[in-house]
Structure formats: C-alpha cells, structure tokens
C-alpha cells in the first residue's frame, strides 16, 4: 500500500513539475518575443550570433551535404537503374534533398553543432552569475543574451539548409555524372522540369525555418533554465541535443503530412 502511494506521489510530482516547466517555457517564449524588438534594433548583436551559430557551422554543413549527396547518387542510381531510369537520378537527388534531407539533416547537425554551444554558453553565464550581474546592471538578459541567440539561429538555419541541399546536388552530380556517367543534359533538365519552386523548394524552406526556430528555442531555454552548476550545464546540453532531434523529426512528420498529402 505504501509502495503504491509513493509511486502515485512520484508520478504526481513528475506531472506537476512537467506542467510547471511547460508553463515556464511558454512564459519564457512570450518574454523572448516581447524583448525581441529591443534587441533586433541593435542589429550587430544578432549578426554576431549569426556568425557564431551560422558561419562556424559552414564547414560541417558543406562536408556533410557533399557526402549525403554522393551517397544519394550511388544508392539512387543503383535503384533507378533496375527500372531503366538512371537518367532520373537528378530528380531523385534534388527532390529528396529539398523536401526532406536538406532541412532535416541540416537541422540535426545544427542542433548538435550550434544548439549545444548556445546552451553551454548561456548555462555557463548563468552558473557564473553573469546573467544576474547583467540583470543588476539594469540590462535584461533575455533581451541582451537570449533574444540575439534565438534570432541568430532562426536566420542561419534556412541558409544552412539551402547550402546543404546545394552541396548535396553537387555531390549527386559528382557521383552520377562524373563518376558513373549518367547523361549530363538529362540529369539537369529532368531536375529542372520536375522540381517545382513553390511546391518543393518553398516547402523545404518553410521546414527549415520551423526547425531553426525549434532548435534555437530549445537551446536558449535549456541554457537559461539549467541548474547553475557544472553538472547542470552538461545535462542541459544533452537535453538540447536530444530534445532538438526529437522535435525536428516529429515536426517533420507533421509538416510533411500537411504539405505533401496526396499531391504529385
């Protein structure tokens, strides 16, 4: 009886904690939006964060994009070839990248490269009382530290996803056309004909913006909310990477089911 009671009690506590944290996160997001105007007016703050989360992620995005494209080239050709449509390789590569792999894989990489760094930075600032000191100097930490990092992520993410897709197409071309010898004209012209700007490209961009906002929000929130100790910061970083990955994949399913339901 006592054992059961303690289980119920623990369950209740976990639920209350969860609800409380959700409320806290919502309030945090509200404040973030409220103070965004203030911080976006000081553009250099956000540009600095675009540099830290965007520019410094360039290398990993370019290299990964290239490899993913090359794998697509190999696998895609191998499969298409069986149905005698190796010429459609360009279509396959471009569609998989713009619709799915570009936004999703770039967002996953972005979460582990830039999201974790943002969480660590904000968490350490909290642990060393820098946020409190800022608050005491009448500078709002959400406006000065959190909002620029959030918008830096939201701006960088679609650009990185686009770059990832472009590198992927290049990788597919490298394998398909240069190495395997698919007809170059067919590769590009079929791609041009089959990829619709509004339907494929814009939807991909929308996805990457949504993922960028989700990852950036999770990263700044986990940092801001962490327990201000070394252990607390390391846990927060882990949570950022894990929750971002789950959020990206779940959001991808939801968005895809709205965007590509039954068409084409």
């Amino acid at each position, binding site marked *: 009886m006592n054992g059961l009671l303690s289980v119920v009690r623990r369950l209740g506590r976990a639920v209350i904690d969860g609800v409380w944290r959700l409320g806290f996160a919502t309030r945090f997001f509200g404040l973030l939006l409220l103070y965004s105007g203030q911080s976006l007016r000081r553009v250099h703050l956000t540009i600095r964060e675009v540099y830290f989360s965007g520019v410094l992620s360039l290398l990993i995005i370019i290299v990964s994009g290239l490899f993913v494209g090359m794998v697509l080239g190999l696998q895609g050709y191998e499969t298409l070839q069986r149905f005698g449509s190796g010429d459609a390789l360009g279509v396959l590569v471009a569609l998989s990248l713009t619709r799915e792999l570009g936004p999703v894989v770039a967002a996953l990489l972005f979460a582990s490269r830039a999201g974790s760094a943002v969480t660590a930075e904000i968490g350490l600032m909290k642990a*060393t009382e*820098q946020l*409190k000191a*800022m*608050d*005491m*100097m*009448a*500078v*709002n930490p959400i406006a000065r530290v959190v909002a620029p990092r959030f918008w830096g992520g939201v701006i960088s993410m679609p650009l990185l996803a686009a770059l990832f897709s472009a590198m992927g197409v290049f990788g597919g071309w490298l394998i398909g056309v240069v190495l395997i010898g698919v007809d170059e004209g067919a590769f590009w012209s079929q791609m041009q004909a089959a990829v619709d700007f509004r339907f494929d490209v814009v939807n991909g961009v929308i996805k990457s913006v949504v993922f960028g906002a989700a990852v950036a929000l999770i990263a700044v929130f986990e940092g801001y909310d962490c327990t201000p100790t070394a252990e607390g910061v390391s846990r927060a970083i882990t949570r950022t990477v894990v929750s971002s990955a789950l959020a990206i994949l779940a959001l991808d399913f939801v968005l895809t089911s709205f965007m590509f339901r039954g068409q084409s």
Partner: protein
Amino acid sequence: MSSESSATLVQLQDVRFAYGERVILRGIDLDIPRGKVVAIMGGSGCGKTTLLRLIGGQLRASGGIVNVAGQNLARLSTRELYALRRRMGMLFQFGALFTDMSVFDNVAFPLREHTDLPPELIRDLVLMKLNAVGLRGAATLKPAELSGGMARRVALARAIALDPMLIMYDEPFAGLDPISLGVIGQLIRRLNDALGASTIMVTHDILESLQIVDYVYFISEGRIVAHGTPDEIRASADPFVQQFIHAEADGPVPFHYPAEPFAPSLLGPGAA
C-alpha cells in the same frame, strides 16, 4: 515612508526572507544614510549576500518593507526597478565578469548599454575607472587571464562605471594582498565621498573596515545583533562583537551549519 531627498537612502523594516523552508532573515531593521559607508558583517552563510540581493530587488522579501530612495521595491514594476538599478552598482562576491569580453569591454558594458556617449569619451571613462583600481595596463586582457584579486578589482571598476548613487560591495577584500587591501579600502572610501554616493559593504575584514566605514551592522541568525560606529564597536563589550574582533571560535556566532549532534551520527544510526 522616506521621500526621495530624505537623509536615509536605504531603509529595511522588519525584512524577512526564506529560501523555501529554510528561513534566512527573521526581521532585519537597518538604515543606510546618504553619503555614508556602512559595513554589514556576520558569519559565513548568515545571509549577507541575500540581504544585498533584496536591496537590489533581485529577491523579494517575504515580509517587511525594503525602501530604496523612497520607493518600496515590492511595488515597483520591472521598468521602474530597472530605472532604479541604473543608479546602483554591485560588486558580486565572485566577480561575475563577462567572460567573452575583455577587461575594457567589461567596464565599458554599462556605459554602452545605458548612455549614448561617443567611443572616445567611453574610452577615457573606462581607462579612468581602471586606473583607479590600478589595472589600466590590463585593459586588453580577458577575464580568464586575471588572478582572482585582479578580477575582483575589475568587477569593482565595472560596478562604479555609471557613478551610482548606491554602491554595494559583496566582500571587496576577499583574495587581496595586504597592499591592495589597503588601497582598495581607501578607494572605496574616496569613491563614496567623491561621487556623493552611499556604500554598503559586506565583509569579514573587521580591522580594515573599521578604519574606513561610518557604521557597522552585525547579523547573526537572521537578526541584527549589534550595530554602532567604529568607535562604539571597538569599545563594545557585546560578546558577539568581541568574538568577531578577536576571531574566537567559541561564542555566540556558530561556526557550524545547523546539523544534528555529531557523536550519534558518528556512532551510526543504531547507537543513538
């Protein structure tokens, strides 16, 4: 309630505070007159940092009134609180320098955030503040390249960057060698008088502080247990004050954090 121009800048009336269940302050009454340097002393963990946070409005008292410059902190909106904090400077116990900025940028931070001064003027002001703490030559260093005492002096320069009306120092002497200690002590006094500011100083360094302060409060177990001018304190027969001045382990100030008796816990749960 005291008005904006009254002689008392900070007034605490029966202020109570608890972290969750743990009661830290049980009714503090304390006045900080304008233009004076006031020291707050007490054993480690007695709630001195907490008291400064209450005066800065970062924590809310669970009872009583905290009045700063005639305004009841509990009634202020965030905007009003920020307006008030612009006129306060606080030296944090552990410095809390911004680690991604150089020493210069740390001190320039409040100036850049709150004023539209041209860069040359900011530069001159920052170098003046750094010169005052003897670290003009360290302007380009990063906080990671400073020693603990140097970091504390930079934090001090940052706390006074905006020439505040109320300066709060949380243990300004910790980690300083005897020479810097004397210099910083004199600096705190001179800054207070030159800026026409009021100063609250939390410290353990009773002998050094008795030379520079105008008034001393002793806290123990959440209450003010003794207070007076330095002369009164030196002459005091209060056992608490005596223990503090002569650094005795036994006396009214407990050295131990509250705990159950030690012997039974050493002998194991069954032995009690």
